[in-house]
């Protein structure tokens, strides 16, 4: 264990941190120190201490409880958005690879390039006009942002599987492209995809925080870290700590999944290639 930790500290840090955060999010669904929705104006803007270990916000709600429930919201949104982006992206990428060099490949990949031109915030902005602000905007916008990432990665990785002898053998033995994709390509590229998913999950948490800071994502009274930071800005002079805790929560969560991604990457790719994202 200790030698494994020395060889791959990022993996250990990522595993431990993300396990703790996931545990906190799960616990928050059944127990929080206080009801995160309960307002108590007499107790507003309390400093940390007593029955409120991290203090209270402008409505007297318990900050620790809000952060815990916020973790659950962030993780769920990130999970659905990255999951949807992954499924769509891998589908598109492996299709393009199976039809490499054809017009299908060209059209698909040009469309994917094009989707890159839309930062998640812009997609979210268009979605608000369409469906009104809400969690759906954030999930859809982050998912759309993830599709091209997974499409490009899975196409590139799938192409190298298609170039192998066993893929050629499968072709010769009469297997269809779909069968080869399902039986050979996807199992072989799964490792790379999982690594990327971990990194994308960190980015999704960042994006969700940004969107809810702007008021686009999670809507009140559901607690969200981004929204808490926005509220905290108003009370910066009175209770500056309110602007510190949610930011720390976001940073730790992103750090957890980034480290996990780095660590897994080291496992999958022994060259320890440190690709700049």
């Amino acid at each position, binding site marked *: 264990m200790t030698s494994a930790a020395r060889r791959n500290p990022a993996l250990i840090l990522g595993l431990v941190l993300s396990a703790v955060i996931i545990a906190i999010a799960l616990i928050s669904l059944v127990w929080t120190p206080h009801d995160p929705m309960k307002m108590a104006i007499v107790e507003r803007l309390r400093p940390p201490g007593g029955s409120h270990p991290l203090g209270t916000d402008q409505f007297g709600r318990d900050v620790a409880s809000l952060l815990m429930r916020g973790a659950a919201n962030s993780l769920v949104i990130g999970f659905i958005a990255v999951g949807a982006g992954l499924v769509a992206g891998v589908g598109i990428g492996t299709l393009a690879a199976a039809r490499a060099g054809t017009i299908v490949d060209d059209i698909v990949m040009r469309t994917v390039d094009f989707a890159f*031109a839309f930062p998640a915030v812009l997609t979210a902005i268009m979605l608000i006009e*369409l469906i009104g602000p809400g969690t759906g905007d954030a999930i859809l916008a982050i998912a759309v942002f993830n599709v091209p990432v997974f499409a490009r990665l899975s196409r590139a990785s799938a192409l190298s599987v298609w170039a192998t002898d066993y893929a050629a053998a499968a072709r010769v033995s009469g297997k269809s492209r779909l069968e080869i994709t399902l039986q050979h390509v996807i199992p072989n590229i799964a490792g790379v995809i999982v690594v990327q998913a971990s990194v994308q999950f960190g980015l999704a948490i960042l994006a969700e925080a940004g969107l809810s800071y702007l008021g686009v994502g999670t809507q009140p009274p559901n607690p969200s870290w981004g929204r808490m930071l926005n509220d905290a800005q108003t009370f910066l002079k009175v209770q500056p700590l309110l602007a510190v805790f949610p930011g720390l929560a976001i940073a730790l969560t992103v750090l957890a999944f980034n480290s996990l991604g780095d660590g897994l990457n080291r496992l999958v790719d022994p060259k320890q290639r*440190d690709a700049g994202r």
Partner: protein
Amino acid sequence: MAGFLARRFLGFVATLLATAIIVFVALEILPGDPAAVMLGVTATPETIAALRTDLGLDQPAVLRFFLWLKGLATADLGESYAYRVPVAGLIGERLAVTLPLTLMAMGLSTAIGIPIGTYAASKAGKLADRLAMGLAELVLSIPNFWFGILFVLLFAVTLNWLPAGGFPGWEVGFGPAFAALLLPAVALALPQAAIIARLTRSSVLEALAEDWVLTARSKGLSRRATLYRHVLRNALVPVVTILGLQFSYLIAGTILIENVFSLPGLGRLIFQAIGQHDIIVVKDLVVLFAGLVVAVNFAVDLLYGIIDPRLKRERRR
């Protein structure tokens, strides 16, 4: 070379056109009646009908699309519904904040990222390298708007050195305007600097492993001279390509950061326009933002071809 340029240019124009189509469909066709959306729930059928005529919404969608395209090409972007002024003027005004902000952030991130990345690579595996890369990892985990809030807390609220937000305008002089943009620019630049530092480091390390580095060293060139004269020039090719991607992040970042610091730029404008259901402004701005991203990526693509002649003819993945 001419064929390469022509093909890239065609692709660029096609991407811009596709962007315009998507934005038009998403904001003018899908929501149903834009006039009803703009006027909100309190509108009467008469006022909606009047606004429809006013905006030319009774014309067929295809015609409206081409009129809009023509307007975009001639910088005649119509009139903002909420502000009652030409959108082009509004954008020009706000660009005087967003453009300097983005450029400052881009300059800062390269000025911080490249030296740190190069230094870390030259000390690869040593403590300095590990500290630098650990720091980069940490910075990458911090949302830029939280940097913004922490800067306000430290430099504005606690130390009172710099303004907490707002923008005095360039007409009051360079100093105050620059000071107002400094914290937002640094907040915007830090995560990008971390990305550049990591990329530069791995790129320099890759170049250092090349055979010609050994040749240069054995000819008696010092480690330093090899690094700066040969390695860095080769290593910066991938760094340049990421600048295009970086621009896209920065543009998205300004939307957040301008809201943190209450800067009257394009990012804040687009958000106010959404609140006011000013579809004309939203439509023009989304297309402008996306168009800028596409244009910068096109420019980087060409630049890449110029910097690295090996790639000139190769087909892009």
